[in-house]
């Protein structure tokens, strides 16, 4: 029984289970009911019909029939607004807990002008038109850090006359990452390399990093003679000066703060380190990231912070 229902009306059972993209709306998952205005309109049509019949007035009856037929066939137009509409991608802008999460939904219209679509998500309604393939951006609330799963979306339309409400449920398998909220007024960044000398192995400032071809201005003492002997050209040793300004953002160092407050402060420090253009590493109870600098690193750090238990 349940299998039959699943086969015929997947939307019924998909109410609970998210489905993978793309989602193509079809007649198995589009529902239609008259709106309240549709019912009122029908009542007026019935009164008109009775009046025309009572007075045996055929032109009036014809007029009523025309109006009724023209309005009721709009159920098909309304259905076509959703039928074969396809949601093929979702994309979320990163956001912080508490900020609105902006999710772009990408639609394929399959060559039909879709008018007056209403997307109900997270208690808010967005009205949009789709003349051709495109995206619509919807805002969700994101109160907590971590993965934010989307609830079911309700896509509906009452176009063209507002007589019929046509709707379908979309439950895409999608979760957006919500970064922790950075602390508003944090203490300054921990001083570079100060606190954690004991724990890290002291490294010499000039560590051999790589070899490269000789350039006329290179000093002679840097020439790697042994290596050059094995090749046809001169090779020069390159040393990387280990920069001493590396910042260590350590979860365990923030004594006396609650778990979330620590995360919040670390998140803020990640941003500040980026602004200061100082390499930083993030030390969490389970793992360490960095040291490094840049958008990728920042994302990796914030992601780890967001996903902390």
């Amino acid at each position: 029984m349940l299998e039959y229902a699943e086969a015929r009306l997947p939307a019924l059972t998909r109410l609970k289970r998210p489905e993978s993209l793309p989602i193509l709306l079809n007649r198995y998952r589009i529902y239609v009911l008259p709106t309240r205005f549709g019912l009122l309109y029908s009542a007026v049509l019935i009164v008109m019909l009775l009046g025309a019949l009572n007075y045996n007035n055929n032109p009036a009856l014809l007029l009523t029939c025309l109006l009724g037929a023209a309005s009721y066939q709009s159920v098909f137009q309304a259905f076509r607004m959703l039928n074969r509409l396809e949601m093929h991608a979702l994309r979320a802008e990163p956001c912080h807990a508490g900020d609105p999460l902006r999710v772009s939904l990408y639609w394929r219209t399959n060559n039909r002008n879709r008018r007056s679509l209403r997307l109900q998500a997270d208690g808010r309604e967005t009205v949009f038109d789709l003349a051709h393939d495109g995206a619509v951006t919807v805002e969700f609330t994101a109160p907590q850090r971590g993965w934010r799963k989307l609830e079911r979306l309700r896509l509906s339309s009452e176009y063209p006359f507002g007589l019929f409400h046509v709707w379908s449920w979309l439950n895409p398998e999608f979760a957006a990452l919500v970064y922790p909220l950075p602390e508003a007024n944090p203490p300054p960044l921990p001083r570079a390399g100060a606190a954690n000398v004991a724990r890290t192995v002291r490294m010499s400032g000039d560590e051999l990093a790589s070899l490269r071809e000789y350039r006329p201005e290179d000093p002679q003492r840097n020439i790697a003679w042994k290596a050059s002997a094995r090749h046809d050209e001169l090779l020069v040793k390159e040393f990387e000066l280990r920069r001493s300004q590396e910042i260590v953002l350590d979860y365990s160092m923030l004594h006396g703060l609650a778990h979330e407050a620590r995360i919040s402060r670390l998140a803020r420090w990640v941003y500040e380190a980026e602004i200061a253009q100082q390499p930083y590493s993030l030390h969490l109870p389970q793992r360490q990231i960095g040291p490094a600098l840049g958008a990728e690193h920042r994302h990796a750090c914030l992601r780890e912070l967001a996903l902390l238990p």
Partner: protein
Amino acid sequence: MNATVGKPLTQLQFGLTAASVSVAVLPHLLRMPWLFAVPIVLVLLGRCQQRLRGGMPIPAWIKLPLVVIFPIMIIFHFGTIFGRAPGSVLACAMLVLKLVETEKRRDARAAVCFSSFVLMSALLFDSGLGFTLVLVAALCVFLAALREVEGESAHNRTWKTALRDDLRGGAVALAAGTPLALCVFLFFPRLGSPLWGAPGDSSARTGLSDSMAPGTMQDLLTDDTPAFRVTFNDARPPRSELYWRGPVLWEFDGTTWTRPEYRASLSRTTELKAIGAPLSYEVTLEPTHRRWLLALDVPLSSPAGAARGADMSMVNRLPIDNVLRYDATSSSHYVFEPQLSAEHRRLALQLPADFNPRARELATRWREEFHDNGRIVRAALDLFHKDFFYTLQAPLLARDTVDDFLFGTKSGFCEHFASAFTFLMRAAGLPARVVTGYQGGYYNSAGDYWVIRQSDAHAWSEVWLDGRGWVRVDPTSAVAPQRVQLGARAAAGESAAWYQSDWLLAVRNQLDLVNRFWNSTVVQFSALRQQGLLTPFGVNKAEYSDLMAVLIGVSTLLMALFAWSVLRAPRVAHDTLDAAYARLCLKLARAGAPRQPAEGPMALAARIGALWPQHELTGLLAAYGTLRYAFAKPPAGEVLAFARAAASLRLPSVQPDALSSATQ
């Protein structure tokens, strides 16, 4: 749920709603007392002006008094708010007030919804074809308004394109709904008897009345609406013999001729002998809300549901509120009541004592002078012929109407002549009476029928002569013979309003065919004819259940057709480039070198290029490769050029062994 419902309407949305309301109110305005029409128009225009200028919502202290004042005015004027006339005024007033308070989508929708009801009720007053068509066109405005109210989110369009789009959408919806509408119209069971009181509106009566005073016919004679239509079954008589007999007026009180109240003696059958073959024909009478039936002089029998009086005028049992069709037979040559009963003689000689002394004197002189009844009639006709003239703009007459007409104004139209002539005859001792009806008509050759308009209304006299019975005498024809031969308009010969000019009337007479078709197919489609609808399918008398079954069946079929057209898989978007390539490959296959299933254009070119050396085929295949894979969207011009080149390519067929050798 609805964030958009509470939003105020845009200007276009409000404009279309206001247009719907105006369209619904307009047909009613034309037949409304000025007392109501003027305030309704003022409120409507004022509200549109105020709103389109971006005004604020109307406060309640303006709205409430209006809501109260209109019903009070209606009750004051009509005495009631029930009935068609007060009801339509009330509906229009309330609709306009609804527009006054329309600010949100809900209001706009309610206004459009109610507009459709008001619009439909206009058809209860007039159900002509033209009017109905106009109202059907008005439905487009309603649907456009609903569309705009629902789908306003497209704000990047100008209001003109939006409006055009909406109107087109409304028209398309109407067209798409037409089959279903016709199905429902045909098969929806009609009521045998009305659920509530049918309209009985005395003010709306048109056509002949049962009395005649100088000037009463004037309105009729300038009214061009059709009164009835006649189809003769075989030969059609000449126009001058087309006297359509209506009410016969016996009693005269000095100014007004009236028909006597129902009397046993009048209902008694009188002797009527037809000479020659009777004419049979079918009459389609427009609704008059009176009970007269018209028939060619003189009817030999009465249709079912009607009675023929002793004076051969026919009265229907019920007022004619809908178009009525009946068969009748008449004879133009007859002997009618050769023995005049005493009662009839008394009625036909009755005259008021103290009116028209000069006319009486003249008649008495004739009586003494001629003795012969026939010569008296001729004398009267000669008198009219000599120095009277025919005009529709007859001057008003004094108390002694006949005297004033005979010796004073000497000009008038049929009713003056008939009245004076009958008076003279009675004064001279000849039994006479006035017959009203219509004379002539317009023959529509395309439809082979006659249309008789209200302007063909006519009055003539009947005189009883010894041995001959009642004889028709038309004094008007003595004055203006062309009235009988050509019609009332030709006889009037005066300047008519521009819309009554001759050529326009001729066009309208021709177009009357359409009206007649409308009347016979739509307006007269009754329960009876609906029962016969299924006769071709073996159901002789369709019951409600049969009709309902057919209605449900056919409408389901139509809906299924619609659903199929909506649900069927859309056609795959046609790609010109691939189509051209597919044709090219087909050509290759015909020539003996089919493309392998997994072969791209380059590989294909490499394999079979050798078969047709120096041929443009290789170039074409390379072009396809470039167009297909080098662009995200190949330029349309080059695609077209490729398609043309591929289509015009000629390939000489190759030997199978050549192919295999080339492959190796």
